């Protein structure tokens, strides 16, 4: 049964402009890399969708970019605060790939630490706006970092199974370069479990709910 669980914050850590929020896991299933959780944002009506960044023993960790009122509120949580957690939601990356290459852009790095761990630390190419943002690369082993104006698509070796997460223009560019790439999209979400019909993206010419069909989409 879908149930929002209250979990205590065990640590928060600034990483560049982002915050790594760690909560106690309890009985919550961490799910698969690429799946996400809806986190109750203090003082806000609706929860916020966050990829699971890491699943340390007994914990769930989320990397949060404070870009709006909900994410800013999540970044102000402190040790001992409680936060509502619903998940795991959505699908995840298909891990059955022979030569994985992780590709991340900005806060798109969020699901990649967990993904990297599950795949045994494959090569990664991460792009950021500045070296301050690029501090988040420390979470992903075996990563090459590029800074704007260089883009990840200029640094990606060919012939790999790409698993990518980042801003839409990056995902579009990665898809043009590697049509078979697995792409983790994001969309505004109110519920995360198919109830609100708010998170639609265009998939094969149709509007479909990203929380149900994704967030990881593989090219047709």
């Amino acid at each position, binding site marked *: *049964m879908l149930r929002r669980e209250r979990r205590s914050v065990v640590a928060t850590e600034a990483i560049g402009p982002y915050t790594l929020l760690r909560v106690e896991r309890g009985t919550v299933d961490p799910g698969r890399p690429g799946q996400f959780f*809806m986190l109750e944002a203090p003082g806000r009506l609706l929860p916020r969708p966050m990829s699971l960044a890491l699943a340390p023993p007994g914990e769930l960790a989320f990397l949060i970019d404070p870009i*709006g009122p909900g994410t800013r509120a999540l970044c102000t949580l402190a040790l001992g605060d409680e936060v509502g957690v619903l998940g795991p939601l959505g699908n995840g990356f298909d891990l059955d790939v022979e030569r994985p290459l992780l590709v991340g852009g900005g806060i798109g790095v969020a699901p990649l630490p967990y993904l990297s761990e599950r795949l045994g630390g494959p090569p990664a190419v991460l792009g950021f706006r500045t070296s301050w943002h690029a501090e988040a690369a420390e979470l992903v082993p075996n990563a090459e970092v590029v800074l704007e104006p260089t883009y990840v698509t200029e640094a990606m070796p060919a012939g790999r199974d790409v698993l990518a997460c980042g801003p839409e223009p990056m995902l579009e560019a990665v898809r043009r370069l590697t049509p078979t790439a697995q792409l983790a999209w994001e969309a505004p979400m109110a519920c995360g479990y198919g109830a609100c019909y708010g998170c639609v993206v265009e998939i094969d010419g149709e509007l479909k709910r990203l929380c149900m069909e994704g967030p990881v989409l593989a090219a047709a």
Partner: protein
Amino acid sequence: MRLLNASGCLDALAAPEVARTLDAYVTKTVTPLPREGNAPVRIAETELGMLNAIGLANPGVDAFAGDHLPRLAELGMPLWVSVGGFSVEDYVHVAERVGSRDEVETLELNLSCPNVDEVPENVGEVVAAVRAVTGKPIYAKLSAAVPDLGATARAAEAAGADGLSLVNTVKGLALDERTLQPVLARGAGGLSGPALRPIAMAAVHTCFRETRLPIVGMGGVARGRHALELLAAGAGDVAIGTALFSDPAAARRIRGELEAELAALGIVSADNAVGLAHRSADSTLDQRSRLLLEKPLHMGANLPG
């Protein structure tokens, strides 16, 4: 008293276990033709609510009747179908297809969605036309944003509606904090959540006075106290919408909270709370034959024995 979901706030096929926590499931509005709905971004949070501009996304009545309805029937719970359209003929077309199906308990006519460009002029006309093609119970879902809600409700009643669903969303707008442009691609959307609750309360209160129709009350219900207040205003049943987004277990929680609220006030059952807000000098018990409470309300007055 039954707890339902507000139409459009739950997909029972995506989350059947959430649907089963309710006493009846209300579908997203079905229109004659399939609709993708509006382009994203379709939702936005506000301080005390949210906006949606989904735009009546639905598979269309043929796919709904042929595929979704049999699957919904497998849930084994009462089904309300929300009926929508852009002309009287549209509502009749959908009502004819679903209004004869054994799987369907009630038709809820969506007469008030702010997210589509054309709305029927005349609530009474639509209700009468649907009344003519189905024997199923018809509930008219109205918006509070009409010039005279009492008159609109009376028109629905006179045309043969069996109940009222109050309220639909009201039009609202939010701007992006960086660009100062509307967050929603369509511009404005329907406001729901806590900000809507006093509006829902007034609407239920008015229509309980102005008609004899049973009422499903909804709008910003997040706690048992909110359900109690809608009952007191005159609702016999309560629906939960936006609250389900942040808390899929809201129905169970609210039911438990309502029981505690009733117990603390010495009210034996939710049904005994219906219309309590109308016990003022200028209402008479003769008019309110639905009021089940016969004793003054004070602690212990309604306890058995």
